[in-house]
């Protein structure tokens, strides 16, 4: 089956998502909530593309034969930049002392989009840090509510450690117990590695790779897909 992506004809298999089909053709569509091996749920909208004129999430939208897909347009780049900007100002992102710097997908997207300053006023919300667990911590300041941990814990670890509570600006991540230490989370669970930012982190391994030598210090996120070496999601 074939469809057109930014004027280029791309061959895809039926049922494949636009994101995966583009990726197989060496085109990186930015994404955040999508994660390898997970059923996508299309919540962050960073992967938005226009399909036959309508905006769709490329990670959930499957390819249809002959579809006209626009991806790398100024309109969509600006839309994605805005989503990334909002994620920064809605949380407390102190990249200068964050262990995830250089490995963080949110930061890497901001680098890729050339974001030098927040476009919207900083909200500086008051958020907590859960340090109760012996091997893992959860810093809500950096949580972008992507839902990866919710899904990875359920679908891959077959536990149910994380869930969302409340709505809108009140929405936040809740753990299945008084605090992380009271859940059945183990440091070896897949979920610990799945967080795109520095919210869910292993203790005592920070800065094992020095800042400056980390993957996104060297090359932009998505460069592996664009060079044909395959990506993370």
């Amino acid at each position: 089956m074939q469809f057109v992506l930014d004027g280029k004809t791309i061959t895809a298999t039926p049922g494949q998502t636009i994101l995966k089909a583009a990726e197989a053709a060496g085109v990186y569509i930015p994404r955040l909530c999508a994660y390898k091996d997970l059923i996508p749920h299309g919540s962050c909208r960073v992967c938005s593309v226009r399909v036959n004129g309508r905006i769709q999430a490329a990670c959930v939208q499957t390819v249809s034969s002959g579809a006209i897909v626009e991806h790398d347009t100024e309109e969509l780049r600006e839309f994605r930049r805005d989503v990334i900007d909002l994620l920064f100002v809605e949380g407390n992102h102190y990249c200068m002392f964050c262990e995830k710097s250089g490995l963080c997908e949110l930061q890497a997207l901001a680098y890729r989009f050339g974001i030098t300053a927040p476009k919207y006023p900083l909200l500086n919300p008051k958020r907590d840090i859960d340090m109760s667990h012996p091997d893992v911590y959860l810093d809500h300041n950096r949580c972008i509510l992507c839902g990866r941990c919710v899904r990875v814990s359920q679908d891959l670890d077959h536990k149910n450690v994380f869930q969302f509570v409340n709505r809108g600006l009140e929405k936040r991540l809740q753990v299945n117990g008084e605090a992380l230490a009271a859940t059945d989370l183990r440091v070896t669970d897949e979920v610990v590695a799945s967080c795109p930012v520095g919210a869910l982190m292993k203790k005592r391994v920070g800065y094992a790779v020095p800042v400056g030598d980390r993957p996104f210090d060297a090359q932009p996120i998505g460069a592996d897909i664009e060079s044909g070496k395959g990506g993370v999601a």
Partner: protein
Amino acid sequence: MSAKPRIATVSLAGCFGCHMAILDIDERILRLADLVEFDRSPINDYKTFTGRCAVGLVEGGCCNEENVHVLEDFRRHCDVLISLGDCAINGGVPAMRNHVPLRECLEEAYLKSPGVYNPGGVIPNDPEIPLLLHRVYPCHEVVKIDYYIPGCPPPADAIWSAIVALLEGRPVELAYAGLKYD
């Protein structure tokens, strides 16, 4: 007054790390001294402007009323104003107090924290001390900023290439390796 373009720099609510990063351009500082004249700056210790400046580099955000006055003075005197570093751009480490009410911050610093000796229980309030703002603001929430060079501190090469671009009349563009938040 010399015909060279003038540069001003200042550290507001910052730690002087960004000024260290300016010095980190190494021997290029000599070329810079050939290219420009330093106006108000901790580098020459001028406390006031002596004339119109082509470029103003601002380190640090605004945490008190004096920072706001100085920043407004920079905006008045500089053709191009650059927010240099994360504190100027998003408040940086000083903005960590933005999650805590100001009164609580002052009590923690002057009354409650370990090692404090303050038998009178007085929080400093001398009129000489600039009043703290209720929160720390990034510079662009106070005046118009033309360019941003993020980083804590920004890479020296990014600072150098930005200054050279402006002196040559080109817009500031950061290479991938020059765009850093850490």
